[in-house]
């Protein structure tokens, strides 16, 4: 039992708990805050994976900016607690059963994975996951997806403006 494993267990458990709260909380604000903590604990898992730049980006972008926007919208709309527990319709039962089934299948598959993970080749490189390495890789090797993402963000921005602006 090394410290990494303990930390991973803690982060994983907290991530699951928060993610569960996101789904089951009645009040949207509680859901949003649980989502923030989900992101936060996921960032912890990223750190354990040597991806600390990704982790801090996760906190900066998701927990720090995007969720603030969520919160803003929820507060602006003043959403109350949702009262739609709803009756079990055929579609709901079927959907729930399908979800549970999919989850079970995936769980079985993942449980069958070899217990000992493949030896990581990254241990040797101290620079792995640093901001400098990431920058170099993104702007050379991964330039195509990176530029595609910038196109994606531009499109998303234009699309959001088009959808949000006054009716035509």
């Amino acid at each position, binding site marked *: 039992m090394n410290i990494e494993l303990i930390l991973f267990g803690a982060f994983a458990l907290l991530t699951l708990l928060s993610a569960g709260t996101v789904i089951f909380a009645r*009040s949207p*604000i*509680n859901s949003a*805050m649980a989502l*923030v903590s989900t992101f936060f604990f996921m960032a912890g898992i990223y750190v354990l994976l040597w991806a*600390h*730049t990704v982790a*801090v*980006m996760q*906190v*900066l972008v998701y*927990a*720090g*900016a995007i969720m*603030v*926007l969520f*919160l*803003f919208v929820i*507060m*602006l709309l*003043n959403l109350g607690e949702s009262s739609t527990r709803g009756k079990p319709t055929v579609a709901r039962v079927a959907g729930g059963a399908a979800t549970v089934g999919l989850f079970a299948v995936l769980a079985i598959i993942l449980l069958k994975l070899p217990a000992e993970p493949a030896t990581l080749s990254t241990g040797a490189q101290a620079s792995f*996951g*640093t*901001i400098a390495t990431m920058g170099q890789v993104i702007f050379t090797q991964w330039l195509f997806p990176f530029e595609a993402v910038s196109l994606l963000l531009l499109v998303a921005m234009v699309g959001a403006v088009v959808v949000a602006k006054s009716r035509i």
Partner: protein
Amino acid sequence: MSRVLTILVAMFTIVFLMAGGMASAYLVGGLVEEHWFTGASRLTNVLFLVLIFVMVIATLLTMAERKWSAFIQDRMGPNRARIALPGLKNRSLGGLPHILTDVLKMLTKEDLIPAAANRFMFNLGPILAFAPTFALFAVVPAGPSVQVFGRNVDMVVATPDFGALYVLAIASLAVYGTALAGWASNNKFGLLGGVRATSQMIAYEVALGLSLVGIFLTFSSVQFPAIIGDIGNALTGGTGQGRYLWRTDGAFDLGLPAWGIFIQPLGFLLFFAASFAETKRAPFDLPEGESEIIGYFVEYSGMKFGLFMISEFVEVVVLAGVTTAFFFGGYHLPFGNEWLANLPIMQEHGWLLGTILGTVFWLKVLFLIWVQLLIRWTFPRFRYDQIQSLGWKILLPLGLVNIFVTGALVLWDPSLRALAVLGIAEIGILVVLTTTTKVPAGGAHGAHAGHGHDHGHGHAHGGHGAHDLPAHAHGAAPASTH
């Protein structure tokens, strides 16, 4: 005359106390490094830098702010709390005892929780507001890394690889406390404050990040130690902000240091404005808006309110520290830096150099805190739309322009001299503009100019957006509003 003397004595005391604090920080750091384990000085740094320096300065700030506002408004300021001790009886002591009374008051007030409030979130709010601001200072180096008792002692808690991104990430979390407090109180005014805080945060978060990109470009790093840089010696030149762009030859070095303020003045203004907005203090105090909605902490009492208040002051200290590190050369002296560091006695007793430079750092911090208090008490509050248009329409485009110009100049002249020439020209233009412009026109010549005119005339004329008011409302505004 005696008043001048008192002030001098007080200032000397402050410098002396800070030097003492730094000296003990270094010495204790060296001791624990030697006797405990390597890296133990990081733990004592938490104690000294965050718990002692930041907390004490923030606590004293509660008083300093009142005194300073009193000076500005030509009042005496608080002086009623006295201590009944021999020799101190009937002395106001500059209002210092008020700190104690404030704390007593907050601790003994009843802790009210509104019946309709969400208890969990209500209690979470102050914690979430306080903790991030406190954690921010962890990455700011308050002094150089020196050898004490043969061990290396860093005057910083943590030096993560992502440096400045940590500041941005943690700072952006602070708004949750505010927003939650506003929402959980189940109070319309509180909710308004929370909504204002979130929208303001979003508007300035982008500009805040962009304003620092210029600094990252010029120093090719996001890490504080690399940006602050090392002091040069006979063999190697300095790095980061510890080097000179132009310097005299000879033992005593005199020249233009590569401080952020000289090579990134626009970046500094943007950063300062945006981070000022994130501290939620006037003129950006819309979430609080004490004259209109009281704001997100309207339902809080006792020490929970105290946490909100003290976190605001902690933010002031942290902002000053971060700004010093990025734009004012961190712990470096503007001149004589290399001369001092290469003195034999300094080489021998590393902690001495550390103490001197650390004191320099805290003096710069105090200066920036003073600037913040000055801004806080001279400018009236923005209107909501002005806040948004300043963030999105002025700071954001200027930040983008700054990045492109900086990138191009760094590419063209990696020695940063071209950038410094541009920077000094920018400073000159700003000075000329602010001193000569009597009635500012609508243009945005740098954030500061746009700034000043927004506050200075915002309230007198019903503001920047006055063109959408009918003409008669224009004249009537000063009389009716203030």
